[in-house]
């Protein structure tokens, strides 16, 4: 069998973070009872007129700027005509001829190195209503109808399920960074249609493609692509022909199924939307929105490595979620110079462990960057020891507050007074003659036991490193 090339392109639908719908003032609060956030516009009543949400245009343009797109100076809306009960006016307002953003791309990491995935365009449209399917009938809820959706259409630059997944994840990260969408997959904020084709190596022209519609989990996208690639390769291998069609991913069956859509289903008879005037964007307006953009995650990773001297691995983990990176940077900036790696260690071990245990995000926790910074300083200045700091961090994570205050109030400061420490060492040695014997007999581990005893006598407040030195000195003198 000759080698086959796989070609994948994605259409990613992203719900924008607006308060209201695309063309009416109905609320977009998630999880409301059916048909509570509806009005004549989003119910598709004849004669009701759409009025465009400025914020949706702004967020789409900001997304385009984050993704390196060219922003159209003049953009128009079109009607996409189709008959299906999720759109009661029988057309969806979308953009075909003049979308808001053109070009651009996303860089993904592949085993062969970074790869640029080009974006064809980004357009703005309205979402359809939700249809719930029951055994004997279906029901329509129009709450979702009219939600602003941004559709990001990639070029067919992807060649494996892994790359497709990396692309969607990179896209999600950038959009969450930009604050344009929550990209919450459970709430359907991000849905993908996938185009896929195979062709023999050496053939220029792309093979006939199948489209898999409406996937809303990363796992689903990956599994559907794996299945569909295998299906197409098997079809070709036995001399079959791939037909251009729309397929549906059935997660329970683990397969894609033809939707046997009618012929001409893709002829949407687009025409200009007469109820909306064009959007004209002056360069000053675009510049003003550009000024609101945050740093791209990749740029931030590089900067954090350079600025705080943390390893690339740390920067990658920290920059993965914008709010984690924001927290880390705020904490580091409050610390003495040179403590970047220490703060990173505390964040990546203690804080992230607590986050994963509690299932919270950092903004949901009372721990502040100032508290973490102070904790790191207290350890660095040897005011408190590691175990005490760990206990404190758990408490700060849960209840907030400042570590310095807690240390003062509870007398948690390390015992660094030499006289006191030496007293503890003497006591420990006197009470554990057997360990001293063992040590003399060559069992050096016995020293560790004695250090533990001293720590206990100090109620955990001694600096373990200093105790170690003192115990070693004392034993050496006894030897």
């Amino acid at each position, binding site marked *: 069998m000759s080698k086959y090339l796989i070609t994948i392109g994605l259409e990613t639908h992203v719900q924008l973070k*607006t*308060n*209201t719908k695309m063309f*009416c*003032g*109905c*609320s977009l609060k998630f999880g409301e*009872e*059916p*048909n*509570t*956030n*509806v*009005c*004549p516009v989003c*119910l598709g009543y004849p004669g009701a007129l759409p*009025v*465009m*949400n*400025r*914020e*949706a*245009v702004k967020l789409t343009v900001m997304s385009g700027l984050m993704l390196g797109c060219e922003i159209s100076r*003049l953009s*128009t809306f079109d009607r996409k*005509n*189709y*008959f*299906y*009960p*999720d759109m009661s006016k029988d057309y969806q307002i979308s953009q075909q001829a*003049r979308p808001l953003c053109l070009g651009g791309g996303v860089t993904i990491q592949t085993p062969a190195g970074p790869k640029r995935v080009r974006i064809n365009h980004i357009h703005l449209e309205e979402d359809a209503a939700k*249809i*719930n*399917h*029951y*055994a*004997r*009938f*279906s*029901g*329509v*809820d*129009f709450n979702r109808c009219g939600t602003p959706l941004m559709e990001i259409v990639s070029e067919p630059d992807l060649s494996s399920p892994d790359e497709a997944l990396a692309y969607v994840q990179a896209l999600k990260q950038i959009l969450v960074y930009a604050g344009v969408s929550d990209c919450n997959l459970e709430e359907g904020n991000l849905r993908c249609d996938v185009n896929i084709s195979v062709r023999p190596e050496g053939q220029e022209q792309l093979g006939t493609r199948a489209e898999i*519609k409406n996937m809303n989990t990363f796992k689903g996208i990956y599994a559907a692509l794996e299945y569909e690639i295998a299906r197409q390769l098997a079809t070709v291998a036995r001399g079959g022909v791939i037909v251009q069609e729309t397929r*549906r991913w059935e997660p329970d069956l683990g397969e894609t199924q033809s*939707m*046997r*859509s009618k012929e*001409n*289903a893709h*002829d949407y*008879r687009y025409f*200009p939307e*007469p109820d*909306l*005037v*064009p*959007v*004209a964007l002056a360069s000053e307006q675009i510049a003003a929105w550009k000024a609101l953009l945050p740093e791209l995650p990749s740029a931030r990773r590089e900067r954090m490595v350079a600025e705080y001297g943390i390893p690339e691995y740390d920067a990658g983990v920290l920059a993965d979620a914008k709010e984690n990176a924001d927290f880390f940077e705020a904490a580091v900036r409050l610390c003495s110079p040179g403590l970047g790696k220490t703060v990173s260690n505390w964040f990546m071990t203690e804080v992230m462990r607590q986050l994963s245990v509690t299932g919270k995000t950092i903004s949901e926790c009372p721990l502040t960057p100032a508290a973490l910074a102070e904790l790191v300083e207290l350890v660095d200045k040897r005011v408190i020891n590691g175990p005490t700091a760990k206990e404190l961090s758990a408490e700060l994570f849960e209840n907030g507050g400042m570590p310095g205050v807690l240390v003062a109030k509870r007398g948690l400061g390390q015992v660094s007074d030499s006289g006191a420490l030496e007293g503890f060492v003497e006591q420990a040695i006197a009470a554990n003659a057997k360990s001293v014997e063992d040590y003399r007999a060559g069992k050096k581990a016995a020293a560790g036991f004695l250090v533990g005893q001293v720590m206990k006598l100090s109620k955990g407040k001694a600096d373990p490193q200093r105790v170690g030195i003192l115990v070693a000195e004392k034993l050496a003198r006894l030897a």
Partner: protein
Amino acid sequence: MSHTLDVAYVAELARLELSPDEKRTFQLQLETIVNYVEKIGELDLAGIEPTLHGQALVNVFREDVVVPSLDRECVLANAPERNGFEFKLPKIVEDA
């Protein structure tokens, strides 16, 4: 003359059932209209901006502020059938 217009095809897309007679009639009538509009193609339009909208307006926006929605009972009052608070439909299998 218009080879781009096929009434039978357009009628099918629009879910219109036309008799053979109606198809012939509308084919002729619509061709006349399309041909009339196509006359504009006889002019040299190079360098002329296309008209994007009937009105010389741009940027009509609404601020992103929630306004009250309709009362749900009013919304559902005209539904031929309802399932709880949903509009009830015959069972649908496929997406568009």
